[in-house]
């Protein structure tokens, strides 16, 4: 069986629960999509989606509640390009034009279990005060040409952004065959990946390190 699996699976379900946008009163909705590397394939679930429009709650918290479910399964051969959830929040400005209220991205948690992430969002800032004014006047705020930019590091150095609100997302992650394929992401059973490093550590005159390496190295043999 161990030799049979050539991919590992990451199943994630969760929710885009709430959003916190102090200073905004318009109704907001969330769009999300996944960004992942070349070695990843989505096997099930919605690749992208749009939530319902939510109104700010009238209590003191002033939250936007979406409770928008995420449910997706990936298969992959390489942790490089681990999937990220890209969210962008849209709303309407005073003129009723749809504008972006925030961009954000977060990696799908790598370890199985339940995770809560609060994604701080941001929007690109106008290049000048004058442009800021005109963009407000004409309801044409600066936007990312590609909203997946927020999931990449490339080309970010030319932008200036302003923080604006946050979104709370919960993830429930289940992985399969990851450990079998050599990717141990659960901290409790973490083992030294290669014997070379173990040897190196043993060679080190640190008795503690070597001692620590021995029991952990036993773990994979016992489980596999």
């Amino acid at each position, binding site marked *: 069986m161990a030799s049979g699996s*050539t*991919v*590992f699976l990451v199943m994630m379900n969760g929710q885009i629960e709430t959003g916190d946008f102090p200073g905004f009163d318009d109704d907001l909705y969330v769009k999300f999509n996944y960004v992942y590397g*070349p*070695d*990843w*394939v989505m096997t099930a679930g919605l690749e992208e989606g749009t939530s319902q429009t939510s109104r700010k709650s009238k209590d003191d918290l002033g939250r936007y509640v979406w409770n928008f479910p995420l449910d997706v399964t990936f298969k*992959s*051969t*390489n942790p*490089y390009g681990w999937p990220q959830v890209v969210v962008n929040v849209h709303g309407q400005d005073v003129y009723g034009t749809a504008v972006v209220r925030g961009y954000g991205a977060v990696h799908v948690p790598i370890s199985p279990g339940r995770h809560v992430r609060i994604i701080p969002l941001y929007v*690109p800032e*106008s*290049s*000048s005060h*004058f*442009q800021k004014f*005109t*963009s407000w006047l*004409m309801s*044409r705020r*600066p*936007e*990312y*040409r*590609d909203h*997946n*930019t927020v999931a990449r590091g*490339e*080309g*970010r*150095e*030319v*932008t200036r952004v302003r923080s604006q609100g946050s979104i709370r997302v919960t993830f429930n992650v289940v992985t399969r065959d990851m450990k079998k*394929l050599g990717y141990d992401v659960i901290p409790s059973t973490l083992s030294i*990946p*290669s014997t*070379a*490093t173990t040897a*190196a550590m043993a060679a080190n005159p640190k008795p503690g390190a070597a001692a620590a390496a021995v029991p952990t190295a036993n773990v994979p043999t016992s489980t596999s």
Partner: protein
Amino acid sequence: MSGQSTLAAKIRERRKKLRESLADTSRETEGSDMELTPRTNGFPESGMHGDDDETALSSSREAYDDLIEAQKLIDDLEERRAETKKELEQSLKESDKPKPSKRTKLKPITPKAEETPKIEDEATKDEKPKKKKKARIKKEPKDETEEAKEEEAEPTEKPEEDKKLMSAEEAVLAVAAGTAGSSSPAPANLNQSIRDRLRKKMSQMKEKAEEEKKEDDEKEPGKVVTGKPPPRRLRGMRGRQLATRFDEPMSDDEKKLHESIAAKTMWQKARKALKKKESAMPSEEEAFDFFVKVFDKEPDLPSVPPTGEPEAGPSEEREESAKEKEKKEEKEKDEEEKPVEDAKEDEPLLSDYFVDLEEWKTQPYSVNRAQYTPYQKVVDREAKVYFRPSVASVPENDKIPEERQPRYLEDEGFYVGVRPPVERRNVNIEENRLLMREDKGRKWFGDDGRIIALPDPLKDQPTRPPVIEPEDIDVFLQTDYKKAYVVDFDSRFIDGLGETYGSYQIDVDINSIIFSHHSLFSKEHVLAAKLQQLYSQYLMRSQKDATTFLTDKLRALKEAVAHLKKQMDAQMKDLNSSFAQDQMTRYQDYKYEIRQTRKSRDTEMHYDRQLLKNILKAWKEIKALRESQGCINTAVKLSVRKEETDKDEDMTQWKRDIDEEISEAREEYEETFNENMSRYNLAKAEYDRQKKIKDAIKKRKKRRRPKRQGSRENLTDRTSDTGGESQTEDDEDAIPEPQKPAYEFNEQEAREKIKSKAQQIMRKPGEPKLYPELTNAAVITPTHNCPKAEQSRRRDQQKCQCYVRILFNNKEVSRTSVKTLTSDFTVHFGDIFNIQIVQWPESIRLEVYENGSFSDTMLAEVYAAIPEPQVTTSNVQIEELDFSSDQKVSYGHEGVGSGYTFKIGDENLAQEYTLLTSGCLLASVAWGVGDDGTVLVPPISQTAGTALGSVKQFDALSAIGATGMVDTEKLAKWISESRLDPNDPANAALLHLIKHVSGDDKKMPVYFRLEQLQQEFNFVTDEELEKSKRFKLIELREKEIPEFRNYSLIPIREKDVTDDIFEEYEKKKKAERDLQVGDDKDPHRAAVAKFLSKVREQVMTRFRAAQHQFTLQDVIAEEPVPNITLLSANLLKLAEPRRPLKPVRKERKVVTAQSLGQTEVKILVNIERAFDVPVRKEALTLTELEAAGGVNSDSLITPGKVTVRPFVECVFQRHTKQTSVAEGPNPNWSEELSLPFKPPNNDYSSASLQTCKDLVYLNLFDEVVVDMLEDDRARATNIHQRLERKWLGSLKIPFSTVYFQGQIEGNFRLQAPRVLLGYQRAGPMENTTTQYGQGKRDTDNTYLQLFITIEPALSTPEPVKEKFDTTEDEKLLNFAENYQMQFEKKHPKRDILTTVMDINGKSVFVTRYFKALKPPAELLSAESNPLKQAELIARFVSLIPFVSDSVVFPGMCDIWSTCDQFLQMLQGDEEEHAVLLCNYFLHLGKKAWLLIGSAIPEGSTTYVLTREADNNFLIWNPSTGEHYPQYDNFCRLKSVGCLINQENIWANIQLNEEPYRIDFDVTKSNMWRPLFTKTFSNPNLTSVQVDELRYYQTDKGYVSDLTDKIEKKLREKLMEWRPRHITRFNRYCTQVFRNLLRKLEENRGNAAIMEHKSELEQVMGSYTMSGFPLNLTYTEMAPIVDAVYSTGVHVNESTDVEFALAVHIHPYPNNILSVWVYIAAVSRKR
């Protein structure tokens, strides 16, 4: 067993004790109750057989009654004891364990059982001993039973056991007696006690029974289960047997039997009891008993207190206990208890046993009516259960114990807190409740009869301070909030900033100032000061007395020398060379030292003497001065003490000294002489040797020369005199002859010298010794006696005041009081300043000030040393701090001033002085001492730490180690060099430090690593990384190698990576390396391809980085800043018509590659219309055609008849779309075709897009409807037709053109074959006379009106504005750049070039590319007509394949290769073609220019402009070889930017840019702006082109091979394309075509129609043909195949079609090939 045995022993011992005590008590009881004994004795028999023996029962009736009575009495007591009992039971239950453990457990219980009675009622205290005894009795049997089995093996103990049993028996008898005694006339209390005893016994029995029962349960659970009926007989037997016990002693066997029987009965009893309990059903026997006994016991039952539910348990217990008792008594033959047991057995109600529902059903029952309880009764009953505390107050007496009186603490003066307020009613309720408790709530009531309560915890005042509003506070009390701030730690502070933890103090003691010169000094003062100075010097010297010291030393040395000499003389004989040598050196050393000492002594003496002289002189001067000025200003007085000496003695001394000295001098001289002598001898010897050799040589060589062996004198003479004469050349390198030193010590002279010296420095013989003594004894003349000048000076002096400022760390901390200058020019302060410091001392400065009239003048500043920590006030010494000032003062009075020259003395002897104010400050600086004697020094450790920074600057050594930043190696080196004293403790730390360095041999690495842990972080080694295919794959993908660029899902395992993944890549690499020649490639082209790919790779890597750079526009979509034009445009937009009649295409938004994502990119081709489509020949007969020459064809075509049905098919990336079919030669489609676009490797980045080589093919077809209906009769009903398409022409537009242009719009000429078989131009057939400048429409061509664009608009790569390397002159480049910028500013749309990039990536000035180059000779010789010649050359150039640079060099703007490179590579784009063509034209002597402009469809391009002989201009398209006259409207060139040739660059500054509207006369400066003008003339740049192009003949054999190859390939392909049909080839036609092709090349495609006709006439007669010749350039096979495919000739569905295919290649020099393909579909005419 030892444990058990010891245990047994213990038990035995204990038993013994018990027996003793029991014996006493039993005797007592026996004694007291004699009466009872017989009774007891009588009982056994009846008691034992209680069940079956009536008589025994009746006899025991009396006793039993008594017992019941007693029991009744004690019932209430029992209740009270229940608790204790239960407790006991609890503990027993806990000990309910298997046997061995139980025994041990039981033992501790014994004392407990003893103790429980103790706790009991005090009333029974007197009975205690008895009870104790009873308890023991009870215990004994149990112990016995337990031990019985064990002890059976020990018969010796049996008698003892029996005895014990006996005593126990007696005890039981006593109990019985007690009960019986109740009826007897015994005292009441006794009776009571007996009852109590009995009761107690019973209860204990119960416990025992329970215990034992449990024990038995465990022992024999099986027995219990089986439930055998009890053997009644045995019981009786047992009783009898037991009865005999008293009569006769039993045998051992009997005893054993008895024992076993006893045990058995016990078990049976227990089992019975248990069974009874378990089943809750009376056994048969019991049932019988029950019914039998009921009658007897009936009267007893009522006497027992009502047995409610709570009674059930105890009663059962009692019963069990009774049973137990019975069991015991049986053993003891005590039947007294038997009735009790019986009575008890009846007590439990039947209902108690009906626990199980099933069982009660088996029992008889009756159904009664439901009972109604009257309400009142219920209330009454409830009242019994419920308690309603009354609200009435409780009388105090109830609340406190009766005998006591309420006590009020408050009245007694104690403080009693205020009770919390509780409502009276509630208190009453609670009190009543408490009183209901059994203990009457005693604990809850205090002494005063009230419920105990803590004082009220609530304070009557709020403890929290009131919050006062800020505004209520008094204004003056209001506080301001200030934000806390953190101040950085200042290292200057000792304890950090702000807080001072310790007090540190520096005491500065300013004692006084003594001026050594002051401006107010009088002359006398000056002299006095000088004198004083001299005197102090004298004192110092005399104290040191260097002269004496040196004289002594000299003497000692002399002695030593003498001694040594003696020694040496003595040892001379031994000739111990080494020792002698040693001594000799010592001797020499001594001598040297003597000389040195003498010299220094002489100087010292000289100085002493001089000093004395000066003192005397100064004093003389003072005296003189005092006399002259008539007053005495100073108290200086010198007295000289004379000491007379003996002259003779002095004389001898003097003489001796001189003699000594002379002898010494002589010795010295001799020494040096000897030395010189020896040196001379050596030199002489050498000289002689050399000389001899020379002479020998001379003798040999020049015999004729007379030998001249002269003396030294002669030689010297000769060398000086006869320089040029004889042997100059030999002597040149000869050693000069040494001079012999002469011994000429002149004793007399030396003596004189020494004498004179002695006279100078020594006291003359007989001269008295002088001792000066300076005192301040002189009387200063009072002021009024002084001269006026002096008086005013003194006044000034008195006015003069001084003070000292003290500055600590450059801050003034204090200043002394102002003190007046005393007459002796000193200022006394005597102030001590205590400076409390918080900062580290950096400097302590003392500034001396003098009071002036306006402002104080600073005389000097003196720095005091910061004291060492050891230096404190108590041990400090006053220091003299010298100072001087450069102040210049002069006075009118006697004061000499300072800084000015003055004279002292008489006119002639006057001495000049220039003195500056100077003096010394007497002061001291030390650490203060506190009151308690502690030194107020900052902690030294801290000093080391914090003050290090300052220390470091000065003392590098002390900073070592502290910083740890030391180059240890250098340090070690330094230490080894400086030879530190290793024993000095000060160096210990240092040596310790270097010990580490030098100690271990491990060399410190000489390199520095930025990431020394890098290796640890490598997750695999480099080798592994190399080996792994997977990693390689990932690496290649990361490098964006095209093959792997978008590879997804790289396998997770190494083994899953298939080898063939790399195969292609490796193959490609290998091909690049090995220059693999494909089957359809010639080696030359392969080499070119290799070269190109290399260049391409370089370029790729160079621009890869640029691809990943983003601009803000790439990432963020933002509205541009609106400006006025934009706003006005917007405003205008409002006024615009909503739907304009002629809409203008709007500029679309450009989409960047990043944002493309998954969106589909399409190419939109809008086909508007076509002009001049050829019409079918069927429409025109051949004759008609001939007649129609020159006539408009439109008139010929009869209306209504279909001439042609054209449609356009568009092919891109194997996707085909076509328009609808239109009709006529000028069709109008106005259709939009959209074709999907897939970029190479699915990568939309601009770098990748521009490498896309795909072409957009636009083919014009004629749709021919072939009627296939065989039977005409069916025509009315059937339609059977076949559609055939005939290719009429095509247009190829490279994708790169579309991509770079964004959109292409205009009329495009279709590339149609010269001959279209079966078709005819509708327009005039031939235009034989070519005319320039007539604007004649070229009717030979079909035009297509198109609009092509990409949707969405893709962003084009930014032209890289990179400064390339260049070898050009900087000045020229700047000039050109300026020129270009100016032009571009004015005409932003016009193209201009000044520098271009060559193939090496270097900037080259564009004019360097132009040079007349000779075209191939055969081309020149082929034609004589200059125009034809030019056309031929143009054709030659156009045959060189065209490949866009952007395809070859992605990202690069343009690379201009030189003509030879171009010919070598055999590919290039328009500029290469143009340059070559231009150069050829230049060779032909034409005036030619390179024209840079834009054309359709290429966009920005290069053409060639020539001026013909008749001053007309021709525009040449170098890529096609076509040429247009200037005024040709159909010229593809649309705008002209600039003209370039080898001379200059001319920028078009005319209003228009269209070629037909501009003037090409470049000499007109208002139309053409040249780069090089008179101010900046052409620097005559050398050309980059080679002088002569090399041409070679193309290999004929290769050409014919290729021809065959192509033909074969095409045939194959043709068959391949028609898989459903048989493809036949018509040999005859092929042959004809082959001949035709040859002619076509010769005519260059022109004017062949007529020949065609004649050639094909024969064929055409019998066949219908559709076909055409194609002319192509040759690069590779694939484009040719593609071109043929795109014509669609193969698409012919007719069954009888045959194909004719001919290929001809016309070779031009340099492997430039013109490929002709003639293809036709032929079908036989019917």
